[in-house]
């Protein structure tokens, strides 16, 4: 059997075995092995697809009369590798946090789904695995929460069906389902214009909906906070780290398949591709809105859920800029978000596993109790907040550069604002959870179990490696860009240094300086600082009286003033909007049902008569 | 009149049915005759008990002769009845004086009673409304004076029977007993 297929289905098969056997221990080993297989095979094929003379690995299967084409090339390898990395970390995490074979089955099934989405070179496979991935992740959510899973489900189904229609239209217009042929046909059609502007715009809109849902773009994000927080947190690593990237990948696919067509059909506005501009704004809004919401959360899971949404927004934003620099930033951020947010979720998983708490107000001073976890958390925090020399900084820096050089100041502002917000919430996380006074019930908290720590390590290392040597990634992205669009990216430098038309970032230098600084700080902390006991309610609002109902601390309602300031906006919730819409819809469905199937057979006979009448009129006139 | 034997009933039924078969097919083709005989046998076997009580006794020559004689007699009565009807229907004044009268019959057999009832129904302005034992209740379109002015019930019955049932009974008594 072809290795691509082994890679694709190893997780699923492992999941089935784990589920069917359902034996503690074996389940975990099988699961981890299944999750590791793809990573191994991808590693094996690295030399084939990368380098100066890249080749692709292709496999075709025929199923249900469709020819499914799978291919490993630079771009698919890249996305698959990111997913596998996170997948392996998830498996390790689950070995510690999950006690359910059900979860193993569907977690690994969604893994297969994500890989399938990335490897597919035709829309049937793409759609099939997209659905598989959605279904499996839905099953994960369903287990814990009905309401959130329903939201996720409905939006996912809407997204999937939007995609299906778009696929159908493309199929109708090009007669093809494989990416190569569609790309070719649409490229030709870009000038011929046999596919109308309106239809092109429709397809774009449908894809936007489909991929926007998965990426959690505002306003299609409403499922994400609940879904991310209401599953096993080890799985969220994968959910937010890898699954959401399928959405981002979809946006990339829009460029690959119909970039030219969209350009010709929708044109250019102030020097920017209109369709790209829309994506960029979608990203920017997502970054800011989700950033604000993240800041306001009291539950760490919710916080990181919104944070995830916000961060995926960056990727959309980068893709939307539409320049090669934008692509570089976006693709880099795919990797860095996966590793730092994945890491975050594993840390959260460890916290929940060991404390059973999720609210900020219940945490405190855990750095001492869980030092390794704390170290991991620190890496994640730094990376997410965009502090060098972490991977997160490199990608954000590139995105910022891209926005500036594309003359999109507002978008750049969004990046900036987003980073500020990110800083705001991670600081709170850092302080409220790890430092300060430890609530008495957390005295017995132990360090995270080993598998979970291994999972963290798997994700922590890339944060550092690709942070210090961003050139590794950028070089690969250059290969991708060349293979996709036959262009080289305008980013120079070496493994440690990035040079863009507007700026230079020397990661190694920064690392050295920072390491020195940290060493000094550490020495001071160890030898100079003395822990100071403060009451838990120590407020940061000097002079304001602390009351029960206006009780702000780092751990509770820390950003409540911000929330009050934003009240004019927060009271309009998309969530409520959708719920009201759904309610109206159900009422409508009820009245339709009661009205049409009213139980009176004479009415039914009238329906028949009316159909006859229509037939008659149509025949007579 | 006592009931006839099974064989007699069966034979009688068979004969009647076979004759009816001949009438219905109106054919003397041997194939028809054979089939008719077979079917008549089967149907007679199934229904002779319902069909007759007297069996072959019904075929006594006297009875048959009376039956044959009864036909023109009855037809004549019937035609007269219809002329009477024509008169009443066509007459502008619609001369009717209806009522329900009671008669008694001397007939014993059910078949006889049926024939009498049918005969009454088909003749002058009378319809058999009900038969209860030997009482006949008859709707009469023109109740004549002598019946209407009868002193008591028995005179009423006597007069009515005189007018309605007697003429038929003399034949039917012989035919059906």
């Amino acid at each position: 059997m072809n290795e691509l297929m082994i890679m694709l289905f190893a997780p699923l098969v492992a999941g089935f075995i784990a589920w069917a056997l359902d034996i503690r221990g074996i389940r975990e080993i099988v699961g981890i092995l299944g999750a590791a297989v793809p990573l191994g095979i991808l590693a094996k094929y690295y030399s084939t697809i990368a380098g100066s003379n890249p080749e692709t690995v292709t496999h075709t299967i025929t199923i249900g009369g469709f020819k499914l084409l799978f291919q490993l090339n630079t771009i698919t390898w890249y996305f698959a590798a990111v997913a596998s990395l996170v997948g392996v970390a998830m498996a390790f995490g689950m070995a510690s946090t999950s006690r359910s074979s059900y979860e193993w089955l569907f977690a690994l099934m969604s893994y297969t789904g994500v890989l399938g989405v990335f490897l597919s070179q035709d829309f049937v496979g793409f759609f099939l695995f997209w659905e598989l991935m959605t279904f499996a992740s839905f099953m994960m959510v369903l287990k814990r929460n009905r309401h959130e899973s329903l939201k996720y489900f409905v939006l996912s189904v809407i997204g999937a069906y939007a995609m299906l229609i778009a696929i159908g239209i493309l199929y109708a217009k090009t007669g093809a389902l494989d990416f190569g042929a569609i790309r070719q046909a649409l490229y030709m059609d870009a000038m011929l214009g046999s596919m109308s502007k309106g239809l092109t715009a429709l397809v774009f809109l449908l894809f936007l909906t489909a991929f926007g849902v998965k990426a959690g773009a505002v306003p299609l994000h409403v499922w994400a906070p609940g879904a991310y927080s209401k599953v096993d947190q080890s799985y969220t690593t994968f959910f937010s780290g890898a699954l959401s990237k399928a959405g981002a990948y979809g946006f990339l696919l829009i460029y690959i398949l119909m970039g030219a067509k969209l350009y010709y059909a929708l044109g250019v506005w102030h020097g920017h591709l209109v369709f790209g501009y829309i994506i960029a704004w979608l990203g920017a809004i997502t970054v800011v809105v989700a950033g604000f919401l993240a800041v306001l959360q009291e539950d760490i899971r919710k916080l990181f859920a919104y944070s995830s949404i916000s961060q995926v927004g960056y990727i959309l934003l980068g893709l939307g800029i539409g320049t090669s620099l934008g692509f570089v930033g976006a693709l880099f951020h795919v990797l860095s978000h996966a590793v730092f947010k994945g890491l975050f979720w594993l840390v959260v998983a460890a916290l929940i596993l060991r404390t059973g708490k999720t609210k900020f107000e219940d945490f405190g001073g855990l750095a001492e109790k869980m030092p390794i976890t704390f170290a991991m958390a620190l890496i994640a925090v730094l990376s997410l907040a965009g502090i060098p020399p972490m991977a997160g900084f490199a990608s954000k820096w590139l995105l910022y550069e891209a926005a500036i050089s594309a003359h999109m100041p507002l978008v750049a502002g969004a990046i900036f604002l987003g980073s500020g917000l990110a800083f705001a919430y991670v600081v709170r996380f850092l302080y409220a959870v790890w430092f300060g006074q430890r609530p008495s019930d957390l005295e017995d908290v132990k360090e995270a179990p080993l598998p979970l720590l291994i999972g963290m390590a798997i994700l922590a290392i890339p944060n550092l490696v690709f942070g210090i040597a961003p050139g590794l990634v950028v070089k690969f992205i250059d290969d991708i860009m060349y293979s996709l669009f036959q262009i080289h990216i305008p980013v120079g430098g070496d493994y440690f240094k990035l040079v863009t038309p507007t700026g230079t970032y020397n990661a190694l230098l920064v690392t050295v300086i920072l390491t020195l600084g940290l060493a000094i700080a550490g020495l001071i902390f160890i030898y100079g600082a003395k822990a100071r006991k403060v009451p838990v309610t120590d407020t940061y609002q000097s002079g304001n009286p602390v009351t029960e109902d206006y009780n702000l601390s780092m751990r509770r309602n820390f950003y409540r003033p911000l929330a009050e300031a934003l009240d004019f906006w927060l009271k309009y919730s998309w969530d409520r909007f959708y719920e009201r819409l759904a309610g109206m819809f159900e009422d409508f469905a009820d009245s339709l049902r009661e009205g049409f199937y009213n139980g009176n057979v004479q009415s039914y006979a009238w329906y028949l008569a009316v159909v006859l009448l229509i037939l008659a009129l149509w025949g007579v006139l | 009149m006592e009931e006839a034997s099974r064989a007699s009933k069966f034979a009688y039924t068979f004969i009647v049915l076979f004759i009816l078969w001949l009438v219905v097919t109106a054919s003397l083709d041997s194939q028809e005759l054979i089939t008719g005989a077979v079917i008549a046998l089967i149907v007679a076997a199934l229904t002779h008990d319902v069909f007759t009580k007297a069996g072959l006794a019904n075929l006594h020559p006297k009875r048959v002769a009376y039956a044959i004689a009864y036909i023109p007699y009855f037809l004549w009565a019937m035609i007269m009845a219809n002329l009477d009807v024509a008169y009443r229907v066509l007459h502008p004044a619609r001369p009717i004086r209806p009522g329900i009268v009671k008669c008694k019959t001397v007939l014993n057999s059910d078949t006889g009673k049926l024939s009498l009832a049918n005969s009454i129904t088909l003749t002058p302005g009378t319809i058999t409304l009900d038969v209860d034992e030997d009482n006949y209740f008859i709707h009469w379109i023109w109740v004549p004076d002598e019946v209407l002015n009868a002193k008591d019930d028995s005179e009423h019955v006597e007069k009515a029977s005189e007018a309605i049932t007697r003429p038929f009974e003399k034949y039917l008594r012989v035919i059906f007993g």
Partner: protein
Amino acid sequence: MNGQYASLLIALPLLGAFFVPLIKGLGKKAIKTYVLIITAIQTGIAAWVFQEVYSTGKPIIVIAGGWKPPVGINLYLGYFASLFVLIVALASFLMAVFNFKAIDVEPIDKYAMLFLLLMLGATGMIATGDIFNLFVFMEITAITAYALTAYNKTGEAAEASLKYMILGGIGSSFFLIGVALIYGATGTLNMAQIAQLAGHINPTVAQVGLALIIFGLAVEAELFPLNAWAPDAYQAAPHPVTAMFSAFVVKAGLYAMARVLYLMSSVGTWHNVLRLLVVMATLTVVVAEFSALRQRNVKRMIAYSSISQVGLIALAFALGTQAGVDAGVFQMVNHAIVKVLLFLGVGYVAVQLGGAEIENFRGLGRRMPVTAFGITVGAMAAVGIPLFNIFWSKLRIILATIEVGYTWAAFLVLAASVVEAVYYFRLIHAIWFEGEGERISESVPLMAIVVLLVVLVIAIGVYPNYLWSVSQKAGSDIFNVAQYIKNVPLMGVGA
């Protein structure tokens, strides 16, 4: 074996049904066993026919009485019919097993006869090559269905049955007017010959005739708004019968509609008929899904779901393309499997727990895990999730629909599918994540069937190739009218 022996497909259920009065005295169980045996033999014959047709690639033409068409009536057991006759037999066989648990109302002997004749009716409708014979078999199916709908003898059952009769009666009357017109114009009742002559007849006659025939069949095929009888009948009928309604009775109507439709494709206004059917089919899907949304009775909910799926099949058939017809056939098979599974599961729950209200499904995962699992798989398949069979056929239908240019129809159908996803979601959630209850022992034979159907659903979902190629052949059997005409050995009467 001589192909004429395929007439056993008709002869056996008839003999089987007529024999029942003679064994009436043997008791309930004996009669149910007897039905099981007859349906098993029927399945065997159908399997033989299927094997014969698919291995030789030639249809079996059963010539009744030895009179060559169009003088006599012929059965046309081509790719489609041989496939579907097998499905009819198989579904009947499975439901004959279900009868043991689900049917307790007297008189069982009458039920047994009607059960076998329902199978017969659908078989005949699918197999026949003569349009009036189609009417006869349609009426056999319909009248059996009326009787079976009312079989439980509750007020609701009688109500549902009467509604069915009135609407079905109107439908069949107009169908017959259509047949009369077509006969008046062509002088023949043989479908192949009608197809041959269809292009040459008076256009008005052809138009009115075709419209009336399609109208009549659309009532049986449950197209909106002619389907108002269906949810009531599905709800009120005994559970195995409901499964049969959904699995093959409505399919027979659909098939007949498609068959007549394509036979008459040379009629001038054919495309208008298609367009009207597309509208009706799409509305069928939409209204049915909406109606299922807040349904408290799960059997009725599944009934609406079934109607919507049927609408999807009708949509596929109304596209007028090979791709559409193939997809429609594919969906027909998949839907039959899934709906047998669902109605079996739901019916069994209703039998065990005393009703099909949603309350009885809470905690079902703990109480009747295998049944619950079966229902869940059925529900997921119905929604069209990958690795389950309907995913493939639904995908095919949507692609075919958009390919023809009915993007709006695909839009509406998929929007309705979102609704479908929601109510099935609620059901699954109620089953697994709500309520409590003690474990109830589940019938082993029934669970074997459930598992078999689940395996089928997933097997086709994972490996659809075989069934797809079969569906393609069966689809071309309907679509390729020229081939159909060629296959029927018409003697040269009038032509």
